[in-house]
């Protein structure tokens, strides 16, 4: 179960994420981003998750603490990420 320290991190993350600059976030439209553990900054941005993972590691951040988020490329999204699923 989560420790009190983890919960404190989550509270701080949610607080900072909600206040983050939309202008700054708009620069990453269509990309995957990784947030700093406290949600105050973006530590990495990439077109795909594998590249993002590499960037997180190179930034010496703990990937298990950096929340990963997809920033939609479109203004209106239906079906979350599956709108652009690859056909197999």
């Amino acid at each position, binding site marked *: 179960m*989560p420790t009190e320290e983890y919960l404190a991190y989550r509270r701080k993350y949610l607080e900072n994420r909600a206040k983050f600059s939309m202008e700054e*976030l708009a620069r990453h439209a269509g990309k995957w981003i990784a947030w700093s553990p406290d949600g105050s900054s973006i530590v990495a941005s990439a077109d795909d998750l594998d590249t993002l993972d590499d960037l997180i590691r190179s930034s010496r951040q703990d990937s298990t603490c950096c929340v990963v988020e997809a920033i939609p490329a479109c*203004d209106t999204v239906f079906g*979350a990420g599956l709108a652009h*699923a*690859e056909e197999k």
Partner: protein
Amino acid sequence: MRFAYLGLPARQPIYSLGGVSIRHRPIVPTHLMSQRQGLPIDSAIDSAADDTIFSEAFARRLGVDLGGAPIGQGQAASGVHFAIRYARVRLLLTDGYESCEWDSLVGFAPYGSDGPSWGMQGSYNSSTFGSEGLNRKYSSLPIHHFMEFMCFTDLDRHEVGTVRTRAKIT
């Protein structure tokens, strides 16, 4: 648990919202865990999604082997059909005050940069909790409980909406 809708920027004023340039979505940070490690991921709550789906890339990062995984077929909003590979993981959801952790069968699919989708199936076998009058001590609730609802709030944690999920008793 209470989560505020999170804002995401639009490239141009959104006509359906009266011209504002920010769209707020029900996004919650989810911890996706395997036996090897855990990954925090911002996921969108989608009451129209039948299953909880994550990108196959997350399975690779978690060390989840999808080679012999049961396969289903999904259909995206665009109409595209795609394969879903199912695996059992552990999910953790917390708003920093209360938390919920449970084993779940989720799907992994190939898709682009629009993020994971939290469907109804992923909420099965989770814990019962409410936003009012609940003891803020967190605890691991037995698997036979079920998620009743999640409340979404504005930035000041005032409740603005409730999503009632289906329940499954195991």
